C-alpha cells in the first residue's frame, strides 16, 4: 500500500499520510517536504507517532459518527479539522481510513482529488488481489494417483463446474 500513499507524500504541505487498516496497523508515508524540514531525527519516532496519530484520529472519527447519529445521518465519509498548527483530513475508504496531516496554511481542498485517487487505486489493487486469489483457488488440487475414469481416458472436472458442461462435451 506504500505505493498508493507515496504520491500524497510528494504534495507540498503534506506532513504525513497514513492508511489505517481495520486491524489498526497504520501504513505511513511521511511528506517529502516535511522530511527536509525536520531532519532525520523525526524519522526515528515515525512509527510510534503514526500509531498514536492513527488511534487518536480514528477515535475522533468514531466520536463524530456517534455525534451525528441522532440526526439519522450515516457516518461522514470525509472530515477536515483545521487548527492553529495544521490540518487533519480524513477520507473513509472501504475497510480503511486514509488520513493526511497538512502544514499550517496548506489547503485541504488541494488534497481532495489526490486522496480520492489514492483510495480508488487502493480499491483497484485490492480487487486485483482478490481476483488473483480467487483464480488460484479454482483448479482442484491434483490427486496423487489417476482415478479409474482418468485411466479409461475420461477427464475429471471440478464439482462446481459440472452444471456448466453437458455430458456430451466429454470424450468417451
Amino acid at each position, binding site marked *: 500500500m506504500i505505493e498508493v500513499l507515496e504520491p500524497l507524500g510528494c504534495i507540498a504541505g503534506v506532513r504525513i499520510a497514513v492508511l489505517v487498516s481495520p486491524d489498526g496497523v497504520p501504513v505511513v508515508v511521511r511528506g517529502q517536504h516535511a522530511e527536509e524540514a525536520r531532519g532525520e*531525527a523525526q524519522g526515528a519516532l515515525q512509527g510510534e507517532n503514526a500509531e498514536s496519530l492513527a488511534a487518536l484520529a480514528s477515535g475522533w472519527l468514531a*466520536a463524530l459518527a456517534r*455525534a451525528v447519529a441522532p*440526526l439519522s*445521518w450515516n457516518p461522514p465519509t470525509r472530515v477536515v479539522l*483545521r487548527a*492553529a498548527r495544521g490540518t487533519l483530513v480524513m477520507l473513509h475508504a472501504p475497510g480503511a481510513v486514509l488520513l493526511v496531516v497538512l502544514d499550517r496554511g496548506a489547503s485541504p481542498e488541494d488534497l481532495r482529488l489526490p486522496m480520492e485517487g489514492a483510495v480508488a487505486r487502493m480499491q483497484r489493487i485490492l480487487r486485483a488481489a482478490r481476483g488473483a486469489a480467487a483464480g488460484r483457488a479454482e483448479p482442484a488440487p491434483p490427486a496423487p494417483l489417476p482415478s479409474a475414469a482418468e485411466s479409461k481416458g475420461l477427464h475429471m472436472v471440478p464439482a462446481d463446474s459440472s452444471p456448466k458442461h453437458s455430458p456430451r462435451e466429454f470424450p468417451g
Partner: protein
Amino acid sequence: MSLVRRLFSGARIREARALLAHEPSAANYAALAHEHVRLSEMAEALRVCEEGLSSFPGNAELERLADRARELALGDRTRELSRQLRESPRPALYRELCAILLESRRTTRAEELAQEWFEKTGDSQAQLVRAEARLQRFLADRRREDARLALEHLDGAERLFPHDERPLRLRLSLASRAGAWREAQRIVARLLELAPGDPVLEARFRTLATMAETAPSLEQALREVERTGRLADDEPDRAVAPPSPSSIRPLLKALAAQGGVQSAIYERGATALVQGAKGATAERAARSIREVVQKSRTAARRLGLGGASEVLLEGDFGSLLIAPAEAGSAAVWCSGEVGERHRRSLRELVGGVPADDGEEDA
C-alpha cells in the same frame, strides 16, 4: 536575482504600496508582504506584517506570513548550523540551533536536538532545553502528557543543577499557567531559599499565599487545562467582541437563505439559535453540533495541532461546516458542498473578520 526581474518586481512593489496607501486592509498588507517575500526581502516582509498586525491584530494571513518570513530569515542560519553540527558537534552550536528552533516554535525538533546534544556531548544544559521545549508544547497544546514530560525533564535538570534557579523558574511558569497556586507558592519558597530577600519573589509569594487556599493540586489543574483547553491566565478574546443576539439572528437568516443551505445554527453556552430546522430536529442538530465541537477541540489538542478553527464533515447527508470560536460556535448544513461564501458568513457569525484563508489562530 536578475536585474530585469528585480525591475519588474520593483514595479509590483510600488503598485502594492499604492494599493495599500489607497486602502489599508489586511489583504493589501499581505499582498505587499508577499511581494517582499518574492524578492527575498524577509526583514522588509516581516516589517510590513508587523505593521499590518498592529492595525489588524490576530489576522490569520498576516500572522502566517510573519511566521513564514521569520522562519525563512532564520532558515539560512539553521542550515549552516546543521551542516556544522554534522561536521563537528559541539555544545555552542547545539545551543544556538536549539534557541533558533524554540524561537520559531519548532518545539519537537528542538527537543529532539537537545536529546541528541545530551547524548553526544553530555552537556547538562541540554536537559533544560528539553524541558523548555516540552513546556512550550504544553502551553501551545494544553496536553497533560506534555506537562508531565516537562516536569520529568525538569526533575532531571534539577538533579544536574541543584542550586540553579532556571529549572525552578520553568517549573514555576508551568504551575502558574496551569493555575496550581499551591505548587507555585512552594516553588517560590524554594526560589527564595536560593535568592533570599528578592522583593519580586517575596511579593509573588504573598500574592500566591492568598490564592493557594482553594487552589487545585498540580495534577487536578493540569487535568482541568486539558479538559477546557484554557490556561489559568488566559484572557477571553477581547480583540474580537462576540456578536450581540440581535445581530446574530439576521446573519443567521441570511445564511439560511443561501442556496443549498438546509439549516444554520449558532451556539453560545447552553443556548442555540437555529434557522431552517424546527422542533426536535433543531434540538438534536444543536446537541450534535455541540458534541462535534467539543470532540474536535479535544482531538486537535491531542493531535498537537493546537486550537481547532474549523470542522468540515461530508457524507451522504451533504456537508456540515462548523466554525468553533471562544464566544460561540456557528454551523451550516448544506445539501451540497460548502463554499467560500458560507465560510465567510460563519466567520462573521462567530465574530471574526472574514478571512481569505479560512484559518484563524486559537
